[in-house]
C-alpha cells in the first residue's frame, strides 16, 4: 500500500484503537469515522461502477482522476489563501470553490482519459484486457506527471483556512467534527443527486439504456459515444470532489490515489459492480468494516488494509455478484 494511505489509515485507527479494551465505548466515534471513510469510498466507487455499467470495464485510472481533483483544488485554495485572508462566511465560499474546482478538474481528466485511453481502443475493437492495460499506462503516466509537476513527497498537508477539528456537537461519546460533517453531508448529497440524475433524467435514462444493451440503445437514437463520455465526466466530478475532501483531511501527494482507488474498487465490487446503489452501500460497509474491525483489540491497526479485502472475499463467496447484484440498467 502506498505511504499516504498508511499514514491516513493509521491516524484513524490510532485514534480508534488507543483504548482497545473498551471497544464498545469507542463504538460511536468509530462509526462516525467509518461513515466518513465510507462516504469517501462511495464517491470514488461510483466512478468505477458507472464506467463498469456502460463499458463493462474496470477503469484503473480512476484513482488518478481522484488525485487530479485533489491537486486542482489544492492549487486553487492555495491561490485564494495567498491573495486574501479567509474567515467567516468566506470559509464556506472557499470550500465551495475547492469542491467545484475538484469536480471540474476531475471531470476534465476523466473526459480526456475516455477520449485518449478508451475511445481509440473501442474504435479498434480491442480485447478487454487491452483497455485495462491502457488504463494502467494512463494511471502510471498521470500519477508520475503530477509527481513531476508538483513534487515527489509522500504527503503535502493541505493549507489550513478553517479549524477542521472543531467539535460541533456530540452524539453519545462520539465527537462530530466540522470536517467530518462536511464530508458526510456532501457525500450523501452528491449520492442522492446522482441517484436522481440516473433514475429521473434523460441523460440517466441514456446511461441505463447503454448499460443494459448498447447496440439496441444506439438503435433507439442514443448517441453512445456522448453517453459514455458523460458517464466518465460524472464519475470524474464525484471523484474530484472526493479528492478535495480527502486532501483536506489527509493531505495530497502524487501517489494518494492508489490505495483509496483500490479500496473504492473493492467497494464497487462488494456492492455489485455496475450497480449505483450497490457502490454507495459497498463503500459505506467497507468504511465501517475497516474502522470497526481493525479497532478490535486482537486485530490492530496493522491489518487495516487486509480487513477490506477479507470482508470483500467473504461477501463474494456468499454472494458472487455482490450485495445488490450486477447491472446498472436493471437494479438502479
Amino acid at each position, binding site marked *: *500500500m502506498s505511504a499516504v494511505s498508511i499514514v491516513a489509515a493509521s491516524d484513524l485507527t490510532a485514534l480508534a484503537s488507543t483504548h482497545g479494551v473498551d471497544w464498545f465505548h469507542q463504538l460511536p466515534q468509530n462509526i462516525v469515522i467509518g461513515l466518513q471513510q465510507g462516504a469517501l469510498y462511495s464517491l470514488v466507487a461510483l466512478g468505477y461502477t458507472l464506467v463498469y455499467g456502460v463499458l*463493462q470495464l*474496470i477503469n*484503473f485510472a480512476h484513482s488518478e482522476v481522484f488525485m487530479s481533483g485533489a491537486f486542482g483544488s*489544492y*492549487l486553487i485554495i*492555495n*491561490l485564494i489563501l495567498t491573495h486574501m485572508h479567509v474567515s467567516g462566511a468566506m470559509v464556506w465560499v472557499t470550500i465551495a470553490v475547492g469542491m467545484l474546482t475538484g469536480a471540474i478538474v476531475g471531470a476534465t481528466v476523466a473526459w480526456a482519459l475516455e477520449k*485518449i*485511453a478508451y475511445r*481509440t*481502443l*473501442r474504435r*479498434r*475493437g*480491442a*480485447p*478487454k*484486457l*487491452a483497455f*485495462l*492495460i*491502457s488504463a*494502467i*499506462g*494512463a494511471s*502510471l*503516466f498521470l*500519477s*508520475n*506527471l503530477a*509527481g*513531476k*509537476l*508538483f*513534487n*515527489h513527497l509522500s504527503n*503535502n498537508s493541505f493549507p489550513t483556512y478553517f479549524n477542521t477539528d472543531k467539535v460541533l456537537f456530540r452524539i453519545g461519546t462520539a465527537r462530530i467534527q466540522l470536517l467530518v460533517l462536511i464530508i458526510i453531508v456532501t457525500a450523501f448529497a452528491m449520492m442522492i443527486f446522482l441517484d436522481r440524475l440516473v433514475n429521473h433524467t434523460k441523460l440517466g435514462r441514456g446511461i441505463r439504456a447503454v448499460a443494459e444493451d*448498447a*447496440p439496441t440503445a*444506439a438503435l433507439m437514437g442514443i448517441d*453512445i*459515444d456522448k453517453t459514455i463520455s458523460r458517464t466518465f465526466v460524472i464519475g470524474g466530478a464525484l471523484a474530484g470532489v472526493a479528492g478535495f475532501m480527502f486532501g483536506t483531511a489527509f493531505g*495530497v501527494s502524487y501517489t494518494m490515489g*492508489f490505495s483509496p482507488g*483500490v479500496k473504492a*474498487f473493492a467497494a464497487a465490487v462488494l456492492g455489485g*459492480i455496475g450497480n449505483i446503489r450497490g457502490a454507495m452501500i459497498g463503500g459505506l460497509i467497507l468504511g465501517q468494516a475497516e474502522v470497526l474491525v481493525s479497532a478490535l483489540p486482537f486485530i490492530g491497526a*496493522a*491489518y487495516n*488494509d*487486509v480487513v477490506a*479485502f*477479507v470482508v*470483500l*472475499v467473504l461477501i*463474494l463467496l456468499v454472494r*458472487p*455478484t*455482490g450485495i445488490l447484484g450486477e447491472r446498472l440498467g436493471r437494479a438502479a
Partner: protein
Amino acid sequence: MNEVTKQHVKRLVLCLLGSVLLAIMIGPQEGTLTDFGISFHDAVLKPRIGFFLAIGVLIYLAITFWPRVRPYIRRPGVVPLASGVVLVFVSQAVMNWYDPLLVLRTSAKFSTLRDVVDKTSGLDSTTTWFFVQYGSWTLVAIAVLATAACLVTGIRPLGYLTTAAGLVGAVVAWMAHQDVVDFGEKGQLGFDHSLGAYVDVVAFLVLAGAGIVAARSRREIADTGGFATSVIEWRPGLPFAVVGSLFGVFAFTRITWVSPLSLNDNFGDTGSDFKGYPISSLASNYLDWLGWLLFVGTAVLALAATLLAHRLLAWAAAVVSLAGVVCTFFSIKSMTEVAAKAAPQLGVTWQNLGIGGYVACIVFTLFAAGSVQAAVAAKSQPVPTTEPAATSKALPFTKFVNQARTARGRAMVIAVLGLALFYPPMLTTRWQAALVASIGVYVLLALGLNVVIGWAGLLDLGYIAFFEVGAYTTAYFVGALPKKPPDWLTLKPLETIPLSILACLLAGVVLGAPTLRLRGDYLAIVTLGFGEIIQLLALNDVGGLTGGTTRAPHIAHPRIDLPGIDITWGQDSLPYWYLLLVMLVVVIVLFWRLEASRLGRAWAAIREDEVAAQASGVNTFRVKLLAFAIGASTSGLAGTFYASQIGYFDPTLFTLQLSILIVAYVVFGGMGSLMGAMAGAAVLTWLPEFLKDQVPQPDRPLWIGALVLLMMIFRPEGLIPERRRKAELSGLSGISSAEVGAVPASEGL
C-alpha cells in the same frame, strides 16, 4: 466553420497539447506546490517550447498528409532507407562510440568524440571531415535525396548513387573510428568495447542496400517487403551464413580478443600475448591456426551448403559449426583462467577478456543455424528422400524440435539460443545484473502469468503473491527465517525448488478452489485482495514466521555439489544467468508442449466461451484450477531463483503494483503467445534500465506509462500477438459503424 475545418483545428490542438506534454516530460523536475504555475512555466518553457510546438505541427502535418504519403512508403527501398537513417541517427546520438574516453569524460558518444576530434591535431583529414564537418550527415543527405529522386523519376543510376554513398559512408566511418582508436592507443587510453561505430557501419550498409533495392526492383510489382522476402527465401539459411561470415570477418580481424593492459589486441596478436603462459594446447593451437581454419572451413561449408541446398553438406556444416563453438568456448575458457592467474603478477585485475571470443561463438552458432535451416528445408522438399515414418518415431526432444514446424523456426531457435549463451558475457556488470535480477526473473514470471491470463483467460491481479510464497518457502527451508525447519529438512537453495513449486501449487489451489467459480472482474478483485493479504501477513510477521522487514532473511548462494559436478554461485551475476536460462528453457519447452495439448485446447475453449466449453464436456473448474496452479508454480520457481540470487529480501518488495505490472508485461507483449509474453516482459524491464542513463530516476514510470498507453492505443494486440487473437482482431476491424463497436466484444476474462 465547416466540418472539415473543425476536424483539422481539433487535430492541430491535440498535436500541440501533445507536444506541450512532451515538453513537460523532457523538462526539468518540479518546483513546489505553492508557486502557482512557475513550475509549469519552467517545465514547459525551459526545454525550448518552440521546438516542441514545431514537433507538434510536424506531427499534425504527418497525420494530415499520411494518406497521400502512404503509397510512397510502400515503394521499394523506402523502408530500408528509413531504417538506415534511423540507425545512423541512433548510433550517432544514442550509442557510445569509444570506451576509453570514459576516462576523460562521463560519456563517449559521437558528439563528445566530435569535440575531442575537433581539438586534437594529428588525426587524419577524413576523420575530421567525418566527425566535425558533418561528413556523415552529408552522406546520409545524399542517400536520402538520391533515393527519393530515383523513386520519383525511376532513373536507376540515382539508386546506385545511394549505394555508393552508403558504401563510402561505411568505409569512411570505419576508417575514421579506427583512426581515433589508433590515436587513443598511442596515448595508452585503454580498450574499446563500444558498439556505436559498428552500428554506424551497419547503418550505412543498410543505406547502400536501400539504393540497390530502389534501383533493381520494378515499382509496379514489388514493394520492399516482397523484395526482401524474395531475397531472404531465395536460399534457406543463406542469410544466416552471410551474416555469420560478415561478423566472423570482424571477429577474427578487428574485434578485441584481449583488452586488459591497454593491449586491445585482435585475434592475430592474441597468440603472442599468451606465449609462455600455460594455456591449454587446444587454446594455443586455436590461436595459432585452428581458429582460422575452423572459421574459414565452416564459412565455406555453410555458404556452399546453403547455396547448393545440399542436405548432407548442410548437416556436415552444422556439425563442424558445433565443433567450432565447442573449440572456441574451451579456448576462451582456458585463456580466461590463465589470464586470471597471471593477473596478480602483472598487477592488474583481468576482468574482461574482450568480446572477440564470444562474437566468434555467436558466429559459429549462426553458421549452425543457417546449415540446419538449409538441411531441413532440403529434406522437406517434395522429393521423398526419407520415409515419413522415420520422423514420427523420433525421440521426444526431436519431436519438440519438429514442432518448430518450419526450418526457419529451428534456425531461429538455434540462433536465439546462441545469443542467449554467448551475448551476456559481453555485457557490462551492471547490465548482467539487470539481465538476471530484473529482465530474466520477470520473463519467467510473465511466462507463468501468460498461462493464467493469456491461455485460460483468468485475470489474476495477485500473481506476485505466489512469487512471494516461493521466495519465502526457499528462505524457510534453507533456515534463513526466524522459524527454523527441522534439521533433517534443512536444504540447500536449489534443493528447495520442488518444495516451493509444491507450496505455490497448493497456494494456487487453495486460492483457486473457492474463488474460481467467480466470473471475470470478481476474480480479479479477489486475487488482488489475496495478494494484498499475503503481503500484509508477511509484513506483519504473523506467527513470527517471516520476520517482517526487520528480520528479513539472508540466503546463502546456491551450490551444486554432486560427484563430478561442483558449481558454486557467488556475487557475480553471470553464472546466475545460465542457471536462469536452464529454468527458462525447461519452462518454455514444457509450456510449448502444453499449449497444443488437450489441456491447452481446453483453456482456449473456456477462454473463448465458457458455456460452450462446458457443454462440450470440458470440466471447466478443474481446467481453470490447473491453469491457476501451473501459473502459480512457475511463479514459485521464479521466487526460489530470486531468493537465492538476491540473497536478501523483505515483504515490501512484493507490491500490488508489481502484480499489475506483470499483467501489463503479458498484455503488452501479446496475450496468449509465449514469444509475446517473453518479449513484453523483456522490453518493459529492459526499458527502465535503459532509461537509467537517459532520464532522471523519478521520471522513469512516466515514460513507461506513456509507452504502455501508446502501445495499447496503436497496437492493442501486443508486440507479438497470438495467431488466433490476431485473426479475431482483424476480423473485428471490419465493423462498419462506430455504434456496433462502441462496446468491446465480450471476451472471457
